[in-house]
Structures are given as structure tokens and as C-alpha cells.
């Protein structure tokens, strides 16, 4: 059993966006803080910090995780995808372009988490209905867009049309 005492720090090694990374964390260090302050990946945004707003959502070993409700220790040896890892593969360029064209983002604070949810969602449900898209988006708070642009952008990418 691995144990880490009060205030003790330990090296965490993980694969982030396909690259081996490591940094130090205490038992209580949140994954969101580890990504931002140890690995300098500031694209993961921290909103409510109690698992409600969805801004800090990342993909941890193929599952969506609220990184503010996940401990850095839990990422030890794991594979993580953050917004910095979304690039030119799969439908990512189409998604980025559609989000831009449909006004699916304004201030961009929620967008990092939303895009990781969308990536995971479309992998598991490539042809979602509008209802399913709206249901998935209910896990994110956006105070700018009213969500309609996101629904249109995701539906368009899922249909594979420009």
C-alpha cells in the first residue's frame, strides 16, 4: 500500500497528451492544481472547485474527470488528455472551426472542459440526437452563449458536414 504522510510530497509521473511528464504533489493536491502549477498546463480552467461547473474537466484513463475533484495522486501512472492535447487528430479541427463559426464560445472559460467532454462524447456516441447533445452539455456551466451555438456546432461535426 502506498502511503503519503501529512505534508509529505511525492513525485507523480504520468502521460499528458502523449508526453511523459512528472511533478511533485502532496496527498491533498488536486489534479487541477497539479496540471496548472506543476506541469504549467494552464488551459485546464478552475471554476467552482467543487465539481459542479465542469470547467476543469479532463480525460483521465479514458474517463471524464472533474480534475478539481480528483487527487493528483490518482493520476500517478495514468494517461491524461487536457485541452492542450486537442490538435489535429480525428474531428478536432472540425470541432474547433464549428465552435468558432457558431459562436459556441465567447469568453472561453468553460470551453476547455466542454471540448474534452465533446471529444469523449462523440467517441462513445458518434451520431447523437439533439436531446443527447443537450443532456451531455448539462454537465457544463456557460454564462456567455446560452449553449445553442454549442448544440449546433456539435451536431454539425457529428453529421460530418462543413
Amino acid at each position, binding site marked *: 500500500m502506498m502511503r503519503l504522510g501529512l505534508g509529505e510530497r511525492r513525485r507523480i509521473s504520468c502521460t499528458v497528451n502523449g508526453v511523459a511528464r512528472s511533478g511533485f504533489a502532496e*496527498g491533498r493536491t488536486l489534479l487541477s492544481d497539479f496540471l496548472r502549477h506543476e506541469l504549467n498546463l494552464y488551459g485546464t480552467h478552475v471554476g467552482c472547485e*467543487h465539481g459542479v461547473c*465542469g470547467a476543469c474537466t479532463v480525460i483521465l484513463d479514458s474517463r471524464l474527470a472533474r480534475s478539481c*475533484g480528483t*487527487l493528483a495522486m490518482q493520476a500517478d501512472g495514468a494517461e491524461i488528455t487536457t485541452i492542450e492535447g486537442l490538435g489535429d487528430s480525428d474531428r478536432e479541427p472540425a470541432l474547433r472551426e464549428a465552435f468558432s463559426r457558431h459562436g459556441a464560445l465567447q469568453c472561453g472559460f468553460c470551453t476547455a472542459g466542454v471540448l474534452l467532454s465533446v471529444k469523449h462524447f462523440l467517441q462513445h456516441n458518434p451520431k447523437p440526437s439533439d436531446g443527447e447533445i443537450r443532456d451531455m452539455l448539462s454537465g457544463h456551466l456557460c454564462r456567455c452563449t446560452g449553449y445553442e451555438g454549442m448544440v449546433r456546432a456539435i451536431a454539425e461535426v457529428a453529421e460530418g458536414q462543413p
Partner: protein
Amino acid sequence: MKPAAFEYCRPDTLEEALAALAEFADDAAVMSGGLSLGALLNTRLVQPAAVIDINRITGLDRIEVTGSMLHTGPLVRQADALNSPLIGEALPLLAAALPNVGHYQTRSRGTLAGSVAHADPSAEIPLCLAVLGGEVELASSRGRRRVGAGDFIQGALETGREGDEMLAGLLWPKSQSGDGVAFIEVSERHGDFAIAAAAAVARRDGDALRYTLGLGGIEDRARLTSGSAPAAASAFAELAEQAAGDLARQLDPMQDRRASAAYRRHLAGHLGAQALEQALVRAGMEGGT
């Protein structure tokens, strides 16, 4: 909001987890998905001396049939339960409730057992477990025991778990062919905490339909009523309204920012009647659902 310092323990086996729980007695928190505990830690509503992270213990994510029961291990994720054909067939009430449990994102890591251990009054999973007459399996280094779901949850975030125990699984009585089930809830947005939730099951027993109706989100824990209806009845609306209304009138509803006590009582009667009627109609039909 950051957690207060704690000792972090990551056991590789259940025995190691139980030994750590015994060592910290009343002052350890078991973490599975972290969707409820994470929020409590961050807001410092709980400040345990140790967090015992059970995510690396193998074999705790199994869904198994044991006789007339389905056993779900402590690491069965809500998303996996929702996608499980076994649960879809054997536990249609849980399958109907799961889309209301949190969001697509939170169900990915959130567990069935974690929701029961957390005991939020508005939680759907403990409501279903209580309505089905299921049990909670508790393990400690002293041994194992089972507690009925109704007795396990003692109030808002209060359970009968001893300090050195952890949930070793949930035991769900399997549905029988012809059973009728229904689950309905009202929340601010779909997936948010239920303002009121109603779960009902009905089963044919000779000339009668035996039913149980449970209401969640109204008081500090699920409240149930059971009874029977003539299977040959042409309609169940009146009986369902009566039964749900009787239960709703006995309740002392919570009051918060989202809903007054009076509105919760109204919802309890209304949703309860709808759910019970649907369950009875389905059980009354040939084949049921």
C-alpha cells in the same frame, strides 16, 4: 477551496484498505469516484485524518448475479451501470433512474456505492435501492455484514456505517418478468439534484398487484409506502393518487432556495401518483416492462 491536509493511502487489496480503515478508526474517508467526497473535502465540510483511495483495488468493479440478487461492487461506475445489459434487464428501475444521476461527465467516474455511502437526501441510487428492498454490504477487518437499505441511511449524509467499515457492495433484488417500474423526478436542470423524485415498483401476486412507492428529495431520506391493488382494475389513477397523497401528507418536507416545503409536498403527491400509476399499469399488462 482546497482540502485540509490528510494522509493519503492507496491500498492494492481490500484487506489493506480494511486495515487502514481500522487504523484510522472514525477519521478516514474512503474515496471511489470522488464526485461527492471531492466536494466535501474541497469545501472542508469534512477534514479526515486520512483518505483511503480504493480505485487501484482490482475486482471491485464487478456486477455479479448471486441467486435472486445482483451484487454490484464498490467501484461499479454509474456510466458502466447505465451501459450494462445485465442491469438493464435485471434492474429496470435503476436503469430508468440512472440517466437522472448527475451528468454525462460525473457518471463517468461516479460509483453506485459512493452515492449510497454519501447519502444525499435527493440521490436517486439510494432511493431505488430502498424501493427494491436491497441491502448494503459492509466490510471491516472484523468481518462482513449486510444492512437493509432503509436502515442504512439514517439522515442527510448520515449512515449506519461504522468508522472502520467500507461499502463492499450493494445487493439488488432482481426484477421478475412482468414487474412494472417507473422513475420520475423534477430538478432545476436535468441531472441536477432532485427537488423531488418518485420511484415505484409493482409485481403481480395472484389477483393482486403488490407495489412499493418511494419518494426522495422531500425529507432527509427516502420515504416509502407499500400496498396492493386488484390486478383486474380497469384504471389505477385514483388508487395511485390516494396512496401517494397519503404518503405526501405525512411528510415534513425540506425547504431550501429551490423549493418551499409546500411545493415539495405538492410535487411528492403529484410525481408519486404518476410513478405509481405507471408501475401498476405496466405490471397489469401482459408481460409488463
